[in-house]
């Protein structure tokens, strides 16, 4: 019995690969399994090659796993195009369509001898039952249901539901195709047992992806306005909002460019509404100036960066974590704006609500650093009840403050109550130019220094937000494991594996990336002699950022890879073992290891 399986499947664009993956995830989720599904495509707009990776587990999983347990190739050319995204090992059961006419001992996988290789007449069964090759994915679903021993009823129900609007004959053929696959699996059991153990808890879950969940959370948080520009891999956020937010009284504007998008959001915020935009790296670069305007004008807003491969156009369809330094520092002048990073699609809900709350409370733009992995992968999540969600609104001036309203009044907290057009007696001039308390333009050095001080000091309470960090493991452990964003999901799993192997490791995952909470990091580092910062960018940006603000122990080193290069839990555990050994032998950290 298996508690954790990774299935990978590839074929041509028209084969229904992606919908097969989604059907499998959904059906498994109905039975109470946890899962993470990622999809990958060739560069063509239509056709081309397409694939999915689905990890199913009896317990929560936070990453897409390592090598495949089951690999399904509808044809070999397309399967091979995905290379390291669908890694086959000596443990893999390889299933492929016998129509490829490739003998089982001559499959084109170089340098690997899979555990088992089976040729299945997938297309033949599809034609015989469904009347066309388009039923191939349904046949595969039947095979999976049979071999994994799960989700037969939910998958059948799913097929019927998906085809509900078609004629009975079509539904009938699809059900037959599913059964053909199922019966084939029963008649041809696998030599490696791939049956799944029952899930840890029963009960249906949510199935979410980070982009859709971000948009939904924004609505829950009270967002009334979104303006943005299409850019991969963030556009789903705008698309969700344009379907849904009108129903709640909100407005979506597809702006003429990235700059107009953030401009309209700043305007909506000035007018008193909660507002958001979403983009990726290139869009963040374009929005830089107006984000700075929002900071000096002390206007709340949320700006989501669904990071992708950079720099410049980079790799639009692949995940990377290389915009951290930009998020922290791209504004010219002395600016702090909070930066939050979710660790999973599910985490996007809480992070988005938090982003709006922080934006309103501190009257500032807040950047959410999501990434393509978190944004677009589908995962199971515990059901979210939004009906009791608490949200924070900006502090508005009361009647007494409006007697003689001073918009940027120096206060103890640094936060000044904020009015908006329409509010009587609250009239003021907002500007990008430096200003005095009343908002009048000034070039005076002393006023400028005091305003900078006010604008930066107001964020101090954020530095105490331990709830925006994941800290796990024995507090006195000498080895630190640090990671962020979607890669944290790999680190968390690596931590558990390392601990089971007796390694003395503790974990730190910041969700508040900036400002850097020196005290929280320093406290964590007290016991630490060696450690590893794991992230998906070439320059080890979190590592560098920490060292700017914190006395990072000399023994900390990095595992930093460019995007489109998966990082696996076992690889992290390997490095932790090496570090443990080095620590035991009293070896110093090599300069080349950072």
């Amino acid at each position, binding site marked *: 019995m298996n508690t954790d399986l990774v299935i990978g499947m590839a074929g041509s664009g028209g084969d229904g690969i992606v919908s097969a993956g989604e059907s499998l995830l*959904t059906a498994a*989720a*109905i039975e109470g399994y946890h899962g993470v599904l990622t999809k990958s495509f060739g560069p063509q707009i239509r056709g081309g090659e397409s694939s999915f990776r689905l990890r199913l587990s009896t317990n929560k999983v936070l990453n897409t796993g390592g090598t495949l347990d089951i690999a399904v190739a509808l044809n070999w050319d397309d399967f091979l195009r995905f290379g390291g995204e669908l890694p086959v090992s000596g443990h893999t059961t390889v299933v492929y369509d016998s129509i490829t006419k490739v003998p089982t001992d001559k499959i084109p996988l170089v340098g690997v001898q899979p555990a088992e290789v089976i040729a299945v007449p997938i297309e033949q069964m599809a034609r015989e039952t469904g009347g066309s090759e388009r039923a191939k994915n349904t046949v595969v679903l039947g095979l999976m249901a049979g071999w994994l021993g799960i989700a037969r009823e939910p998958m059948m*129900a799913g097929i019927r539901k998906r085809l509900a609007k078609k004629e009975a004959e079509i539904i009938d053929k699809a059900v037959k195709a599913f059964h053909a696959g199922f019966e084939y699996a029963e008649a041809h059991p696998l030599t490696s047992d791939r049956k799944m153990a029952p899930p840890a808890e029963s009960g*249906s*879950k*949510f*199935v*979410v992806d980070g982009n*859709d*969940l971000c948009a*939904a959370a924004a*609505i*829950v948080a*009270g967002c009334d*306005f979104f303006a943005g520009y299409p850019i991969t891999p963030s556009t789903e956020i705008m698309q969700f909002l344009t379907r*849904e937010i*009108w*129903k*709640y*009284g909100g*407005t979506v*504007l597809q*702006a003429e460019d990235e700059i*107009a998008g953030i*401009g*309209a959001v*700043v*305007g*909506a*915020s*000035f*007018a008193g*509404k909660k*507002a958001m935009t979403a983009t990726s790296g290139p869009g963040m670069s374009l929005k830089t100036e*107006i984000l700075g*305007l929002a900071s000096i*004008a002390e206007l709340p807003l949320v700006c989501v960066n669904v990071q992708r491969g950079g720099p410049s156009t980079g790799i639009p369809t692949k995940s990377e974590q290389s915009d951290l330094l930009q998020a922290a520092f791209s504004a010219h002048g002395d600016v702090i704006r909070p930066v939050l990073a979710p660790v999973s699609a599910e985490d996007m809900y809480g992070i988005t609500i938090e982003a709006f709350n922080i934006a309103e409370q501190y009257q500032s733009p807040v950047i959410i650093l999501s990434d393509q992995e978190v944004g677009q992968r589908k995962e199971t999540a515990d*059901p*979210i*009840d939004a*009906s009791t*969600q608490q949200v924070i609104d900006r502090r508005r001036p009361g009647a007494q403050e*409006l007697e*003689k309203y001073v918009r940027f009044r120096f206060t103890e907290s640094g936060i000044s109550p904020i009015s908006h*057009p*329409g*509010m*009587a*007696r*609250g*009239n*003021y*001039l*907002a*500007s*990008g*130019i430096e200003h005095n308390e009343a*908002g*009048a333009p000034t070039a005076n050095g002393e006023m400028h220094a005091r305003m900078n001080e006010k604008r930066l000091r107001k964020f101090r309470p954020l530095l105490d937000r331990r709830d925006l960090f994941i800290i796990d493991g024995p507090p006195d452990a000498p080895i630190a494991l640090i990671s962020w964003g979607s890669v944290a999901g790999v680190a968390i799993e690596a931590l558990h594996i390392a601990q089971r192997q007796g390694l003395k490791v503790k974990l730190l995952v910041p969700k508040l990336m900036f400002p850097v909470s020196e005290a929280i990091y320093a406290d964590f580092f007290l016991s630490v002699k060696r450690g590893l910062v794991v992230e998906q960018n070439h320059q080890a940006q979190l590592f560098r950022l920490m060292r700017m603000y914190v006395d990072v122990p000399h023994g900390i080193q990095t595992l930093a890879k460019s995007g489109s290069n998966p990082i696996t839990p076992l690889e992290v555990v390997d490095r932790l073992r090496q570090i443990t050994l080095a620590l035991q032998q009293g070896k110093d950290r090599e300069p080349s290891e950072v």
Partner: protein
Amino acid sequence: MSTLATKPIQDYTARDYRSDLKPIWCPGCGDFGVVQAIYRALANIGRPPHEIAFVSGIGCSSRIPGYTTAYGFNSVHGRALPIAQGIKLANPNLLVLVAGGDGDGFSIGGGHVAHAIRRNIDLTYIVMDNQIYGLTKGQLSPTSRRGLISVTSAHGSMEAPVNPLLYVLGYGAEFVAQGTPADMSGLAKVIEEGIRFPGFAFINVQSPCVTYGLEDQQLKAQKALMQPLESLNHDSSSSLAAMELAQQYGEKLYTGVLYRQGTPSPTFEGSARARHQALGAGTRPRAQVMDLFKLKK
């Protein structure tokens, strides 16, 4: 900044819209006249200052919001229009004004003009067109004439000027007017009409730069050159007639309304309101959006 309590509409005077901030403009600057005309237009309309949002970019003319008692937003160069649209969509009940120079609007801001027009969001865009960059001390602008010698065209500009009137007419603006502080009542009139027009309204103001502008651009020369359209038998309901006049930008100075669409197109915010009503906005709790992630067995 002075603030004002609400008065009955008929009691508002120009004084109520003037703030205490002292303008940075040079004595004799055309913008003094423009801001006076704005005060007068607003007084005739009688909306309280706190219901007015006045957005600008960067430039001498962009200082204007600070010289009024409205909520002002002196933003960044070229981006006033997107910001103003966000304000209006967030609260369509506000009276939204936008101001800037020819550089702010047609150089760095040029890409946004077309889209403000096609969305037809109800706001009034006043461009103080003086064919030069005044605040930064004398560089050429997109409406500078060919051959202009300036601090950034030491040997003469090699470019043809943008025609702001043709630009906005070409993109389908439904209210286009021109004015000059050389005719204050005419200017106040077109500004008021633009504000009252239910949709995007564009007013090009030949507001001369007294420090860096040319002799033949100053108010005295304008007074001699200007031709009020009312006295010219111009049919302002014809966009083609308007374009013919617009072609002569630079040679002639037509003042008044060049074009006013008789049956204005729907505004973005008007369509948005209709959509909100049709979809039952406000009848459901926000938490309901989470139902979309539930799995039905």
